[in-house]
């Protein structure tokens, strides 16, 4: 759908905020009130009223023409207005109010008509009607509307919620608080949109867009240059290529920097809203009232909920009964310790019953939930969005991806292609209509092969989900018909039972497929995007290394390497999440399951403090196992405990490990892991290579021996 409808400022989509909302009537659309205004003005003129009375309606001096101010000796009398003057001022105020009412009514009505037409035109009357029914008839929709009405303020909160008795005491405070909190967060968001925060964001966005355009242009220039290579001398080509590549790299860096800035702005805004939104809600709720639903605290047994009183609780006034209409005059206050009474607040009408225990439970739940949210959530958000810290080692993806690294630099616009589409595999897949989970006989040696097969089923899964929806709907209808039957035969009962079984089975299948679709396949698409991103950065690094001779070269390289490390870290996390998902579901082929290292085999190398922590122990041993099987350790922060331990332990196990420490980035890259099969192993420390893993053969406290061509290696002993 090319055009999207909702045009009001949308805090979810802050980029929309600069657009003029379509919901605001266009010029001329609100002509009615304007014309009405003009007519009224003309009428006033006819009545001989002063022209600028609307501009200064409260200014009593505006009547000077009709009621000249007394002067000279009568001046003292000017402070006391003649009765006729007071009457006229009141009249003008009334007129102004009338004008505003007419204007507001017209504006509100015009907006409704226009938006209604637009919505029906865009989505069709039928669809609009269906969603509208959802909002008006279904519980979830009614709650949405109730929240809307509370926030609109046209109906008292307690009257809207409409829960009765004890469930109300437990539920309504939560609902009311949630609505208020959403509202407060919403206002804060609007505040952020209106005030400086978003102007900052907008400028970052503009800069980012400009950088994107620049990047595109540079890429085009580079592509043109490639095409015209034959028309120029090699030196000339080199000169131009160097310049363009350096520009591309710089612009790319700008884009990445700005997108990080944008992300951190959003993070800060969200954390602020969650934290202060919750505190503000607690304060507002406690002072002004939290709905307790419809209650019957005065002790009369009224079975029908419609005759219950609606109740609000607040620190200031205690529990209040709001009678129909919820006008302030219809409020009675219950017996309640009220600190404000001591300060001279109204005592109210005491009904003689305290708030029941359930009421306090509901209130406590509402307030404590918000407090938890205020304290915990911002922390979670900031943890989730935290920029990568290099304290924890993460590991580059298995070699499958790296092997696709292009030999020659390619323009960034054409990132290396994604792993080959598994057409061959698709042919092999079973023709069954339901998406079958991995067929056991299929040869799927690598994680990428496995995932490509799953991804190829994405359409199939979506179709199957639709089919399940239809089937479920039909079965439910059929079952309903059977339920409605007056005299059910045994056959009917059996049919109902069968239908129940089929519905249960289909619902389970639906859940599994949805889980996979949302939990793993979408993540896999992200993973592929990240891989492309990593390849692009690798391309940049190669180009900079090859062509860039500017003074910024090292800085650029450093930045790009850090970005690459970030990508690889994310890729590895995604791979792990996806793999875990399929493993949990029991769908991962045995071959792809991570081997569980025997705890007795390698744990002798573990530092003491890790040995006692089962979770950490498993993590370290798993890392060691994957380093052994994949012969790869991802870049890690130099000096990182786990990273250094891996290097050290591999050497103790008879591997040659070459490392490259980059003092600029603070990262250690492992360039080689190779198992030596003879006594030449320089890392063996005298342990026989034939049985490097034999318990007792390596000494965990042995100092690591130097190795690697870089000559930089000096791994720290485990535990440092």
């Amino acid at each position, binding site marked *: 759908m090319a055009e999207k409808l909702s045009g009001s400022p949308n805090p979810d989509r802050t980029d929309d905020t600069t657009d003029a909302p379509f919901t605001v009537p266009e010029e001329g659309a609100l002509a009615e009130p304007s014309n009405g205004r003009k007519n009224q003005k003309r009428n006033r003129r006819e009545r001989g009223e002063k022209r600028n009375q609307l501009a200064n309606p409260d200014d009593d001096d505006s009547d000077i023409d009709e009621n000249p101010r007394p002067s000279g000796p009568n001046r003292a009398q000017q402070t006391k207005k003649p009765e006729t003057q007071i009457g006229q001022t009141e009249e003008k105020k009334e007129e102004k109010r009338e004008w505003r009412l007419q204007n507001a009514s017209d504006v509100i009505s015009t907006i409704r008509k226009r938006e209604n037409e637009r919505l029906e035109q865009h*989505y069709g009357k039928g669809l609009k009607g269906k969603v509208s029914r959802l909002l008006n008839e279904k519980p979830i929709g009614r709650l949405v509307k109730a929240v809307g009405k509370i926030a609109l303020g*046209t109906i008292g909160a307690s009257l809207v919620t409409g829960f009765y008795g004890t469930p109300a005491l437990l539920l309504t405070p939560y609902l009311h608080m949630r609505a208020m909190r959403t509202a407060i967060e919403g206002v804060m968001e609007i505040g952020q949109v209106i005030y400086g925060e978003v102007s900052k964001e907008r400028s970052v966005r503009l800069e980012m867009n400009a950088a994107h355009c620049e990047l595109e242009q540079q890429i085009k220039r580079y592509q043109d240059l490639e095409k015209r290579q034959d028309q120029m001398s090699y030196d000339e080509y080199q000169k131009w290529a160097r310049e363009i590549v350096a520009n591309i790299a710089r612009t790319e860096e700008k884009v990445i920097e700005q997108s990080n800035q944008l992300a951190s702005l959003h993070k800060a805004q969200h954390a602020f809203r969650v934290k202060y939104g919750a505190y503000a809600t607690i304060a507002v709720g406690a002072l002004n009232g939290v709905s307790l639903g419809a209650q019957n605290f005065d002790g009369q047994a009224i079975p029908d909920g419609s005759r219950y009183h609606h109740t609000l609780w607040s620190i200031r006034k205690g529990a209040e009964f709001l009678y129909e209409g919820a006008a302030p005059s219809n409020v009675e206050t219950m017996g309640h310790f009220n600190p404000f009474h001591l300060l001279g607040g109204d005592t109210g009408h005491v009904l003689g019953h305290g708030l029941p225990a359930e009421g306090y439970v509901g209130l406590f739940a509402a307030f404590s939930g918000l407090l938890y949210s205020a304290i915990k959530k911002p922390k979670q958000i900031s943890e989730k969005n935290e920029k990568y810290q290099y304290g924890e080692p993460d590991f580059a993806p298995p070699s499958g991806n790296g092997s696709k690294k292009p030999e020659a630099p390619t323009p960034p616009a054409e990132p290396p292609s994604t792993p080959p589409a598994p057409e061959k595999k698709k042919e092999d897949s079973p023709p069954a209509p339901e998406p079958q989970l991995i067929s056991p006989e299929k040869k799927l040696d690598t994680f990428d092969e496995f995932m490509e097969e799953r991804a190829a089923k994405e359409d199939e899964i979506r179709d199957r989900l639709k089919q399940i929806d239809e089937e479920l*709907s039909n079965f439910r209808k059929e079952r309903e018909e059977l339920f409605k039957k007056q005299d059910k035969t045994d056959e009917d009962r059996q049919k109902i039972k069968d239908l129940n079984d089929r519905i249960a089975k289909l619902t389970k299948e639906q859940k599994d497929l949805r889980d996979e679709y949302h939990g793993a396949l979408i993540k896999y698409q992200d993973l592929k995007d990240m891989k492309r991103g990593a390849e692009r950065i690798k391309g940049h690094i190669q180009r900079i290394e090859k062509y860039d001779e500017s003074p910024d070269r090292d800085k650029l390289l450093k930045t790009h390497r850090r970005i690459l490390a970030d990508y690889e870290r994310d890729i590895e996390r995604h791979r792990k999440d996806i793999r875990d998902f399929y493993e949990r579901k029991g769908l991962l082929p045995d071959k792809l399951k991570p081997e569980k290292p025997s705890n007795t085999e390698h744990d002798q190398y573990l530092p003491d403090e890790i040995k006692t922590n089962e979770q950490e122990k498993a993590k370290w041993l798993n890392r060691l196992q994957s380093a052994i099987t994949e012969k790869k350790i991802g870049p890690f922060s130099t000096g990182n405990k786990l990273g250094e331990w891996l290097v050290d332990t591999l050497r103790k196990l008879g591997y040659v490990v070459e490392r490259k420490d980059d003092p600029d980035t603070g990262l250690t890259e492992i360039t080689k892991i190779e198992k030596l099969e003879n006594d030449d192993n320089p890392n063996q420390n005298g342990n026989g290579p034939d049985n490097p893993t034999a318990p007792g053969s390596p000494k965990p406290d042995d100092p690591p021996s130097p190795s690697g061509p870089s000559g930089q290696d000096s791994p720290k002993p485990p535990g440092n």
Partner: protein
Amino acid sequence: MPSWINDVDPQGLIEKNIFELLDLKDAPEETKQKMINDMVQTVENRIIARILDRLQEPEIRQFEQLLDQDDDNAIKNFFESHKIDPLQIATQEVLNYKIEIINLIAAKEDEAAGDDQN
């Protein structure tokens, strides 16, 4: 910065009804009721638009099917899986609407006052 912004405080916007904010508390009940109906209808339309705008064409068809099926749980799951929080949307839309109306009326009043002074 427009002058009405100074009046935007969360508590006032939430707790005061639109008639209080527009200083039209004493308007005739009949007119107020008509305005309430219009406002509720507009907000409802905006909520609908916001929900549908979040969906792609095939997802809209899927949503429509769910509405036809009358299955509350499926609709709830659908919202969850598409990260649609109707409560959040409703509140945002209402607050936006309140601000918008107050702003529009204030602007028209300023404009009228300007016309009168000229």
